């Protein structure tokens, strides 16, 4: 694989107290592509994802070793500015976590936290662009004052993605972004991800192997905290190098 990695982990170990959740993970994630991380429950895929914007810092009794290089900076260094890191490396969660606020205020929230854009017309423009990006502007432009919780789950998830996009990130981490959605909404979100990859680096953790196969350009398979295999998705799903990967993706275990 010939690319300059956008994200690179070097000898990454991660502990929850004494439990080694990630063991010597070395992964190179390319920019402007979709990379999926698959593996059985508890294999460390979400932990790996959450390391990339240091969300795990919020959990007590955890320890991390090694390095995570994003754009030539090791983000594990103690002097990393976490607010700007999390703006640059946005995250979308399993269940759409919209705030109990209007659609407009959901989008404005992040801008305020990050002290971006204060002028009302600029905020409005950013809101419009964010919603356009996720294909919601047409449906919602006259309902920006409506509570975001009244939206369908798919719309909520799109709104969550817009809320990340509005902060102009480089990287978007998605942790099971479609597991609360029905199959058609899932396919629609996947189509959105394919559009977004032209501008952003997307990393998606999913239980749904078929989704990883459908949507991603690269796939990593994790097992018991280790990265077993990483490669182009079509290679991993047609001719995996490791027997363990083959057994997992063909449903022989997991």
């Amino acid at each position: 694989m010939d690319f300059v990695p956008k994200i690179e982990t070097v000898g990454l170990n991660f502990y929850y107290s004494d439990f080694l959740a990630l063991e010597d993970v070395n992964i190179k994630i390319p920019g402007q592509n979709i990379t999926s991380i698959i593996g059985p429950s508890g294999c460390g895929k979400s932990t790996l994802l959450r390391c990339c914007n240091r969300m795990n810092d919020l959990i007590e009794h955890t320890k991390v070793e090694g390095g995570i290089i994003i754009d030539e900076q090791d983000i594990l260094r103690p002097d990393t500015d976490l607010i700007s890191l999390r703006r640059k490396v946005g995250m979308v969660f399993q269940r759409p976590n919209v705030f109990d606020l209007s659609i407009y205020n959901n989008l404005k929230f992040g801008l305020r936290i990050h002290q971006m854009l204060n002028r009302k017309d600029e905020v409005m423009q950013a809101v419009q662009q964010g919603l356009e990006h996720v294909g919601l502007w047409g449906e919602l432009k006259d309902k920006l004052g409506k509570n975001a919780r009244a939206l369908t789950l798919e719309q909520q998830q799109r709104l969550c993605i817009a809320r990340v996009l509005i902060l102009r990130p480089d990287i978007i981490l998605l942790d099971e972004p479609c597991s609360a959605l029905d199959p058609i909404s899932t396919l629609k979100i996947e189509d959105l991800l394919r559009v977004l990859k032209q501008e952003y680096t997307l990393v998606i953790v999913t239980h749904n192997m078929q989704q990883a196969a459908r949507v991603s350009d690269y796939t990593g398979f994790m097992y018991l905290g280790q990265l077993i295999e990483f490669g182009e998705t079509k290679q991993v799903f047609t001719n995996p190098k490791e027997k363990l990967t083959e057994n997992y993706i063909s449903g022989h275990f997991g």
Partner: protein
Amino acid sequence: MVRESFSKYIKELEKEVTEMGEMVIVAITRSVEALKTLNVNEAKRIIADDMLINKKRWDIEEKCINLIATQQPVASDLREILAILCIVTDLERMGDYAEGIGKIVVMHGSEPLIKPLVDIPRMAEKAVSMLKKSLDAFLRRDAQAAMAINSEDDEVDLLYEQVYRVLLNYMIEDPRTITRATYLIWVAHNLERFADHITNICERIVFLVTGTMSEVKVSRY
């Protein structure tokens, strides 16, 4: 539209199948022309160019396999990919028949043809027209048109019989023509087989559109 990217892949595949079909049409046309003019150098080029058709087949197969592995196609999408896998296998074999005619031209060498070619070019023309129609039916998903093409294979079979009878007469009259007449019978046989594969393609088009698998026509040879 949902799954736009998947539809895009399918469209690309269809385009590649058409391109491969056109390569086969060019190959068979060139091979019969090389026979007419006894152009051994052209025949050698046709033999070498068959590699390109083979490669096209592997490329398309690989894309089909990737789509099955990554996109979980079902219903008509699945049938289309399966139909394409079968169609490219037939097209590849048809390319081999063109190559085979090229090899016969090389064997024939510069000795004059025992008779001017009449029915062999007709067989080729008929087969090419059938193939063009079948590729068109494939793109339009037209099962009826595909069925209709099948009946045209009878015409190719009749021409084959005619070629065979005429050449047998030549051989009986003058045993010195046996080798060259046999070469021409082989050419006609290649063309007859070539056309039979078009009926396979038509069966796959019917399967793609209707979901039923059946032998639409049993060839006489």
